[in-house]
Structures are given as structure tokens and as C-alpha cells.
């Protein structure tokens, strides 16, 4: 009887999240048909690429418990690599856009693999704040390099993209085309990560978040699992970053910096870490509010957003979706 009641409560919680998933999906599907403002639709496409970034952070932080202050290094580095691969000449360059995106994601994943191997399997395996500081340092160094990188990175001015997002001859670079391209990319990433976390490996990753030592003492090779998740997370960030910066048409040093890395943490925390859908909602809602309010409340919008964030974090410490999923945070 007790087991049945407890199971029913658990199912009811997951149903609430499922409803949120459906409602959010229907709204986003309907948006390009309802809205006539192409600029607004295009803006939602940008939110989707950011949401991919947020999912990548949710995977490593929300599920794996590894706090990173430098994930924009992967999101932005991918943009820089695509720009270099498509805009610079020499050796095998320039590359067409899509191979450049693939190669950029691969390079970022390899860099993340090396970084995480050093961090998790090095002579002094890192945890918690130590790793957060390392990722912070990587973002800071990359930003400084991007500013000083001259011919390669374009220095303070960055690099302008000449390529446009096209697929099977269709223009996906702006407006509805970009909305659908970014939307499909987001759905693919969402489903991929949802499948990953629902598999056995996902449970182990959540176990590492809860109690890394106990996972080790159940016989799992914790560093290997953390390296795998960190690399996957960086590759997803790179995937989102590639689309975002090609669409923007320019990449500048701020793309790989600390500010962009902390902004994504807000989206994830607001939506609910460890929920996948929460970070998407957090990104879309917060960025849309920022864009709308900054146009109407020229001097005060930042205070309104700040106050709203504080209220939401106080009322929903586990994030909005975390509240729906698990109830009030303990």
C-alpha cells in the first residue's frame, strides 16, 4: 500500500514534467505559424542554439555535479574554429561550412578530452571548486588569446563570417529557416541527452553527482565516466556554438569568456538543473525577457531581471522544473 502510494507520487511528478514538455513543445511548434514578426522568430532560433549550450552545461553540472565556470570556452572556441576553417586561407583551408562545423566540434571534443583527462586522471585528480577554477582559467586564457591572436583570431575585432547556413539548397540563415534549423538541432540534442541520461550510464552519472566515493566503491571507474561526460558535454556546446556564431555573422573574444560562461549557469539554475527541459525553458524565458525589457525599460531592465532572478531562486531553489519534478528543494 505504502509502496503503491509512493510510486503514485513519483509517477505524478514525472507526469507534471511530461505535461510541461508537451506544452512547451506545442507553443514552440506553433510560434512560426502564429507570429508574423520574422525578427522575433529569428530571435527564438538564437535562443535554441543557446538552449543547446544550456543542455550541455546541464549534462555536466546538473547530472554529473561537475561545476564549470568556463563552458563558453567550448561554445565560443567552436565558433572561432569554424570562422578560421572557412575564412582563412592556407594548407587545407578554407573549408566548406558543414565540414568546418564537423571538424570544429571534433577539435573541441578532443581538447575537452585532453583537459578532462588531465583534470580527472592526472597526478592530482580534481573535484568541485578545483575543477571550476581550472575551467575558469581556460576560459580566461582563451579570451586573452582571442584578443591578442592577431591574424588568426582577428584580435579585438574578431572574425566576420562570409558563409551562410544552407541545407539542401534551402536558406536556413535567417528567420523561419534558421528557426527550424536551430529547433531541429535542439530537439536532436535534447533527445540524445535524454536517451543518454535514461540509460544505465545516466544513473551512474547521477550517482557520481550524489556520492562519487560510493560510486567508486561499487566498482565503477569514476574518472573514465567523468571524462566521457565532460567530452560529450563540450562537444554539444561546440555544436550549438557553431550554429550560433555562423548565424550571428561575427565572433569576438567575449564569445569564449567568463561572462558567457556564467550566464549559461543562470539559465540552467533558473530552469532547474538535472532536468534537461528546465535549462531550455530557463534560456528561452530569460533571454526573451532580457530582449523585451531591454527595449522598453532602457535604464532599469537589468534591475528588473536581477530582482526576478533572486525571487525565482529563493522561491524555487531547485529551479522551476526542479520544483515540478522533485517538489520543494530539501
Amino acid at each position, binding site marked *: 500500500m505504502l*509502496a503503491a502510494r509512493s510510486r503514485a507520487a513519483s509517477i505524478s511528478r514525472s507526469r507534471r514534467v511530461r505535461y510541461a514538455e508537451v506544452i512547451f513543445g506545442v507553443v514552440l511548434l506553433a510560434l512560426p505559424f502564429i507570429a508574423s514578426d520574422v525578427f522575433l522568430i529569428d530571435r527564438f532560433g538564437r535562443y535554441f542554439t543557446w538552449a543547446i549550450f544550456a543542455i550541455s552545461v546541464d549534462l555536466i553540472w546538473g547530472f554529473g555535479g561537475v561545476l564549470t565556470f568556463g563552458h563558453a570556452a567550448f561554445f565560443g572556441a567552436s565558433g572561432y574554429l569554424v570562422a578560421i576553417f572557412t575564412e582563412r586561407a592556407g594548407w587545407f583551408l578554407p573549408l566548406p561550412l558543414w565540414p568546418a562545423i564537423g571538424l570544429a566540434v571534433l577539435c573541441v571534443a578532443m581538447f575537452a578530452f585532453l583537459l578532462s583527462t588531465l583534470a580527472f586522471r592526472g597526478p592530482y585528480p580534481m573535484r568541485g571548486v578545483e575543477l571550476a577554477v581550472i575551467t575558469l582559467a581556460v576560459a580566461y586564457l582563451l579570451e586573452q588569446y582571442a584578443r591578442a591572436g592577431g591574424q588568426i583570431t582577428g584580435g579585438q575585432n574578431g572574425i566576420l563570417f562570409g558563409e551562410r547556413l544552407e541545407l539542401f539548397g534551402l536558406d536556413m540563415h535567417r528567420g523561419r529557416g534558421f528557426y527550424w534549423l536551430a529547433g531541429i538541432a535542439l530537439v536532436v540534442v535534447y533527445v540524445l541527452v535524454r536517451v543518454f541520461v535514461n540509460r544505465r550510464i545516466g*544513473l551512474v552519472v*547521477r550517482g557520481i*553527482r550524489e556520492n562519487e566515493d*560510493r560510486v*567508486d*566503491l561499487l566498482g565503477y571507474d569514476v574518472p573514465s565516466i567523468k571524462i566521457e561526460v565532460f567530452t560529450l558535454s563540450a562537444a554539444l556546446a561546440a555544436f550549438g556554438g557553431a550554429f550560433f556564431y555562423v548565424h550571428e555573422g561575427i565572433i569576438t573574444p567575449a564569445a569564449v569568456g567568463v561572462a558567457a560562461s556564467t550566464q549559461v549557469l543562470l539559465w540552467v539554475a533558473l530552469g532547474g538543473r538535472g532536468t534537461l527541459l528546465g535549462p531550455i525553458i530557463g534560456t528561452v524565458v530569460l533571454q526573451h525577457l532580457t530582449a523585451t525589457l531591454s527595449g522598453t525599460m532602457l535604464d532599469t531592465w537589468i534591475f528588473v531581471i536581477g530582482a526576478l532572478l533572486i525571487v525565482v531562486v529563493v522561491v524555487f531553489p531547485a529551479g522551476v522544473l526542479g520544483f515540478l519534478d522533485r517538489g520543494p528543494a530539501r
Partner: protein
Amino acid sequence: MTAIVEVREVSKSFGGFMAVHDVSFDLSEGEVTGLVGSNGAGKTTLLNLLYGRLELSEGRISFDGSDISDLPAHQRVRRGLGMVFQHTTVFPELGVRENLRLGAMRKGRGTDASSPAEIDAMLEMIGLTAKQYDIASKLSHGEQQWLEIGMVLLTKPALLLLDEPTSGMTRSEAARMADLCRRLVTERTVRAVVVVEHNIDFIRRVSNRVLVMHRGTIIASGTIDEVQHDQAVRDAFLGRTV
């Protein structure tokens, strides 16, 4: 009896402090070994050396004839060591059933696929069937201890190490724990058990053999009656005739 574990001349020092000094003993198949001693005697350090949390300063530990002295903890677990702590180490925000799944599905010993029936049987054994969908942090301390034991047993350990398993348990729970320890060995669920415990009644109920530690060394070994009449034990702990 066949020795599962051979501990030879093992020492562990922290700077100038020798926490475990020149300890040697065997753990045999079918035995429950009690490890007793006062606080600071080196019992927990010795357990930490056995499961690989601490590196040996000197000596060697063999498991089923293979030297495991340099293996990290997770590889020792894969060989068949299971460790249950005094302070529970369950996964607080995961469900009770998910905690058990993590134990059941671990890689390395042919138990990759966690069978629901196996988990149901374990829930029944540890008395948590009614709470299987609860979050682990909502359980009482005693229930969390049972959950941890269930999780570790699902890894199918050959050697089970228990650090003060009755800590925080009621008398009836301690009796149930003693019964479980005996059954695990007699029913050959595990091949041997080592229990660190201050509760001498519990040690008397479960142990075939007792190792007494004092100031980092083993000063006596035998049945509980034998060690209670051992002169070195009397000198170390009682200073009077038992």
C-alpha cells in the same frame, strides 16, 4: 580453510605517526572475523588499507592469491571486495530502488544487467519494499544503513567489510544484522566477512574469530573466549582479570 585474503607485514604511517604497524593475518573462507580495539587502535585504517582507500606504507595484501596492494579501490571492488561504512554513503537524492540498481548493474563481474527480480528480492531482504520509490534521504539512519548493505551485496562481493554496522541501530535491528552476517556466510552469499565493531555482544554473536588491535598492531587472535582470556588483551584494555 582456504585463505581469501593474506595480509603480510602491513604498515601505514602518516608523517611520523605509525597508525598500523607490521600487521599480518589471513581471512579464511566461511569465516566472520571481528576486528576489535579501542578508538585509535588502527581498525578503520586497516579497513581503509584493505579496500584501497589508503596506500600501504609497507607490506602486501593478496586477494585470492593475487597481489592487490597497488590496485585502486574500484578495481578491488571488481575483484570482490565490498565495503559498508559506519556513516552511510547512499545516494541521497536518488530513489531507494535506483540506489540498489547502481549496486546491481555495476560492470566487471558479469552483473551488468540489473534484474528487477534480484532488486525485489534485496528490497525484501533489507525490509524496504514499501519504501522502494522514496528518495533515500527520506529514510531513517537505520534504513539507510540497510540500503547501503543491500547496495553492496548486489555487487556480489566475495569479502564483505563492515565498519561498525550496528552504529545507530536499535537492539532488534542489531540482532537482525547479526543474523544477516551469519546467514551471508553460511548460505555462501559471501565467502567471508570482516566486522569492525565496539559492540562486543554483536561480535560474540557473529564472529568465528576475533583480531584484537592495540596501538596499530594485532595483539591477539582467536575465538572471543580465547582473546578475552589473553594476557596481552587484559594488559592492554582491562588491567584486571576477566
